[in-house]
């Protein structure tokens, strides 16, 4: 039964020692330790939050970039399309203008040829008439010498004329 009766001396020592221990530990150990742990937990939480925010920011930027890329691609397609249309129209225009120009040139050339032909014909006609007059003069001169030959010549001339 002695075990169940507290000794006064130990009660006093225990009270003093425990309260002193509690005072010293809370001042020099628990306060700084708990504060440090709390601070560290806070900083870990902050870091995690920041990482989360950075992740979101990153995702936002990525999606923005994608959007921009899409826009740029669309714009490029648009520009290419426009360029193609423009090119086609230019080519067509050039073709038509070339055709008309060609046609005009051909027409001009034809007219020129016609004119040249006409001029040549006119010149030929003149030369023919001069030549005919020459011939006729010579024939007439020789005819004047021989009657029978004159007649032959006239006949042959006439014959030629008819053939001509």
């Amino acid at each position: 039964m002695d075990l169940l009766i507290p000794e006064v001396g130990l009660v006093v020592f225990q009270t003093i020692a425990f309260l002193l221990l509690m005072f010293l530990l809370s001042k020099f150990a628990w306060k700084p330790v708990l504060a440090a742990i709390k601070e560290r937990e806070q900083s870990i939480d902050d870091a995690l939050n920041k990482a989360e925010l950075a992740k979101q920011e990153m995702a936002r930027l990525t999606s923005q970039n994608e959007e921009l890329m899409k826009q740029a691609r669309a714009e490029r397609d648009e520009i290419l399309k426009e360029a193609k249309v423009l090119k086609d129209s230019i080519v067509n225009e050039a073709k038509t203008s070339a055709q008309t120009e060609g046609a005009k040139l051909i027409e001009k050339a034809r007219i020129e040829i016609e004119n040249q032909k006409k001029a040549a014909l006119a010149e030929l006609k003149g030369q023919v008439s001069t030549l005919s007059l020459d011939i006729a003069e010579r024939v007439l001169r020789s005819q004047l010498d021989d009657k029978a030959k004159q007649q032959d010549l006239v006949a042959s001339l006439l014959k030629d004329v008819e053939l001509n």
Partner: protein
Amino acid sequence: MDCSHVFEFKFKRLIVVFTLFSAFLMVSLGVNAQVDTAHATTETHGETTEKKKFEIGKFALHHIADSHSWHVIGETYIGLPIILFANGSVVTFNDSDFHHDNDAKVVVEKGGQRFVKMHEKIYLASAVANEHGQYVELDEKHHPKNARPLDFSLTKNACTLLLSVVLLLVVFISVANGYKKRHGKSPKGLQSWMEPIILFVRDDIAKPNLGHKYERFMPYLLTVFFFIWFNNMLGLVPFLPGGANLTGNIAVTMVLAVITFLITVFNGNKHYWKHIFWMPGVPVPMKIFLMPLELIGIFTKPIALMIRLFANITAGHILVLSLICLIFVFNSIWVSAASIPFAIFIGGIELMVAFIQAFIFTILSALFIGMAVEEHH
């Protein structure tokens, strides 16, 4: 209040109950065996051998009780200082002045007063010795009837108390310095040993029971937890720096329980006191009936705390001692083949109990304080 988390430890409690049960079983077995062997020896060899008989009960109780000397090894003891307040004066001397007497046969005269020591307790010596040569008067149960001086001696328990205070201060101030040195960095060394336990006390003991007010009670909860745990483990060390049964001493557990009680009483809010003196939500006769019950409840809680720690640690020590003593009870070396492994096994369980009891004391303290400071909505 949600108390479910307290019952999560049913399994551990079961082990504790089992340990207690086996402790008492083993002690009674041991005592029976001792009686049997005593009978056998007296029958065969007569009275001469009776002196040799091994008294396991006395042996175990002597070992778990406080002492004025500290056993080193073999027959070597360190005498501890004795400080007494007797008849208005302070008397100091050393325990070695008693020359290992523990039966009130050696009288020490100091400051004009005479003292004897019997069963590790100091008495004012009688003028003349009785028929056994003891300077005390004994009653029919062999307890001395002499007056006792106020004993403020540095006993084995008092020295262990100082040792543990120094140990706790050294350990936790160095842990705190670790936080200063590695500010904001991960813990290292002793710091990383202690940090999970500090967090355990904070997150699993204080926060669930005390809610957002936990910070105010953290110093007490942490101190009481580590004080009990360290001393439980020191008590398991069988040689010099350990060997004392501090947390198995009723004076120590009483002081701890009283501190919990005082914290509970002084922090109780008006809801708490209303629940005790005028329980809301029940008819008036019931309120009157409940008042004394609740009033008793204020005191039974810390008393249970006191008894629980004392009984668990004492039982553990008795159990280990009894198992070892079986060798001497049966006076055969072959018994050690069974009792030593068993003692080691129980030692392992005791190591667990050392932690569990510190935990239970702390969580119940937190629970009681939590009930007192809880806000009702």
